[in-house]
């Protein structure tokens, strides 16, 4: 049975200056079709704005989309802004052009899963569904 995201709220955000928003929009549409309520920030959002929206909107997961190569710096900034707001453990996901050698560092920063353009959308949804489920039972 296909995974469902019914009843969840997910924030899809574009931090930094990167203008590639196709991936973010495809994911937003796919998550919505899987039942999630999706909030998409639009382009060029500062890490503190993203953290603020995540807390204000009480989201169950955050997906960051970064294709400019600045993922390590931006993830670190978003994580520290979330901490500054005592956001708790909102599962954080990352999509974009993310070289394999950066994965370990990003996971250490708290990224639950890293998605590439070539990954099937059903796998992305299943991963989100599992991680959000684990979180709510934790």
């Amino acid at each position: 049975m296909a995974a469902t995201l019914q009843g969840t709220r997910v924030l899809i955000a574009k931090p930094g200056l990167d203008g590639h928003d196709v991936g973010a929009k495809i994911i937003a549409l796919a998550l919505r079709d899987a039942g999630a309520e999706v909030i998409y920030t639009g382009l060029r959002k500062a890490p503190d704005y993203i953290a603020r929206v995540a807390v204000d909107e009480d989201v169950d997961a955050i997906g960051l989309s970064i294709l400019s190569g600045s993922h390590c710096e931006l993830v670190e900034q978003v994580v520290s802004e979330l901490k500054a707001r005592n956001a708790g453990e909102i599962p954080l996901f990352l999509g974009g052009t993310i070289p394999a050698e950066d994965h370990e560092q990003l996971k250490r920063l708290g990224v639950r899963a890293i998605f590439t353009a070539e990954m099937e959308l059903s796998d992305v949804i299943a991963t989100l569904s599992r991680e959000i489920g684990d979180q709510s039972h934790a």
Partner: protein
Amino acid sequence: MLEQRRQEDRDRSATRAPEMAASTPSGIEIPAVVDPAVQAISTPGRAAEYPFTRGIFADGFRGRLWTFRQYSGYGSAEESNARYHFLLDQGQTGLSVALDLPTQCGYDPIDPISRPEIGKVGVSLSNLAEMEVLFDGIDLAKISTSFTINGTAAIIYAMYVACADRKGTPRDKLTGTVQNDILKEYVARGTWIFPVRPSLRLVADTVLFSNDATPRFNPISIAGAHVRDAGCTAVEEMAYTLANGLAYVDELSARGGDATRFGKRLSFFFYVHMDLLEEVAKFRAGRRIWARLMKERYGVTDPRAQHFRFGVVCGGSSLTAAQPYNNIVRVSVETLAAVMGGAQSIFTCAFDEAFQIPTEFSAEIALRTQQIVAYESGIGRTVDPLGGSYVVEYLTDRMEEEVLKVMAEIDAYGGVIKAIEEGWLQMRIAERARERKDKIDSGESVVVGQNFFRREEERGAQGEVFRLDPQASRRVVEKYEDVRRRRDAARVEKSLAALRSAAARDRENLMPYLIDCCHAYATVGEMVRELKQDWGEFQEPIRL
């Protein structure tokens, strides 16, 4: 266990591989045999004659080959200058400058939003001193340079003119292009700064000034490439681009420009993806439609102002991170399509471009791909080598019909500017991107090595890794601060104040003011800040 898995993989590829689709990726159905007795097919006319289906030059590539123009730039100006010299030494014939996101979005390197992005997707170029380094040892009168720059195109063009002034190169000797197509930035590429209307003013300022001061320079390259790579079809790519083109012609005409004059300096830019015949037909149809529009809508009779001149990029989202060496083959096929479609300049993506900045090794193979097509394949020997082929003429006709249909849909919505300001075009592209992704996920579209014929154990075998110098960003900031210390502060203030007051006067061309600012070593961020004071910023419509 292993044996069983292998057999499963084999079955999967063998049983799931779909039959050859009867339609192109744009959805144009093609008969198994095109028969002129059954299908109506138009006769294409002669090369270099209106409406130019077969090409704009009578001697095609015999007279002059297309320009080999590899997009390149990263880190600081010093590193990019070294890569340019490498590429020119390898036989590249024109430069194409990739700029970093702070430069593209109008932020100086010290801005907090800039710090993580400095030098990442292109070279940092915050002021004239950096550009002087970038072109050190390069003769601007001999080498044409293309800048992929949009939000700050007027500023980078001003900087290029100022750079030529400094180097003693006469302005009228400058050749090259600034992309300067802001409309598609709102739709796909995202480096917008100001709202649509003042942005169009800046585009017009650049074009009109350039026609006088740098008459051999292309002040705009109306680009479909980015909407295509974002997800839309070849038909939509051409339709959206031509629609944007008409919006620029209207704007320039409203500003008092003469279509016969600026029309000669309009250029276009597209992606070439894998469906070879559809791509060739797209360019042939594009030439025909544009010539007709220029003649019928604007009364342009000079053939050179009816010419649809275009550059292309081969690769992009048609490339895969899985089994990256396959991308060399993909780019070869796409290069053939570009040449048979009659492109004026070609950029071939490197095989590792799906996941990193190309290494010197991969960048060289990309350039060699073009050289092999140019000098060994022989396809450039004759004009429009596929002209007269039943299927290509058939497809060209269908493509023309479909493109005009999409253009009519945009008109029916209320025009391209409304469609962009309200986010309608953006939404259409996002939906199309989703469809393209679903087709790959479901196996309806085959991507070799990704959704079919893949080898799990080979994933991650990507060859040499490109590493950006981690110190580049620090050097950029140091140089920036140094320039700000050394420059004549009073002159900077004066030039920026003059720019701001000119911006408040609608009919004033801002180019001379921007060039003055550049000569004073005012920075990109400072100039943008002045303009934002009056114009504000674009508010992105979010519709999903």
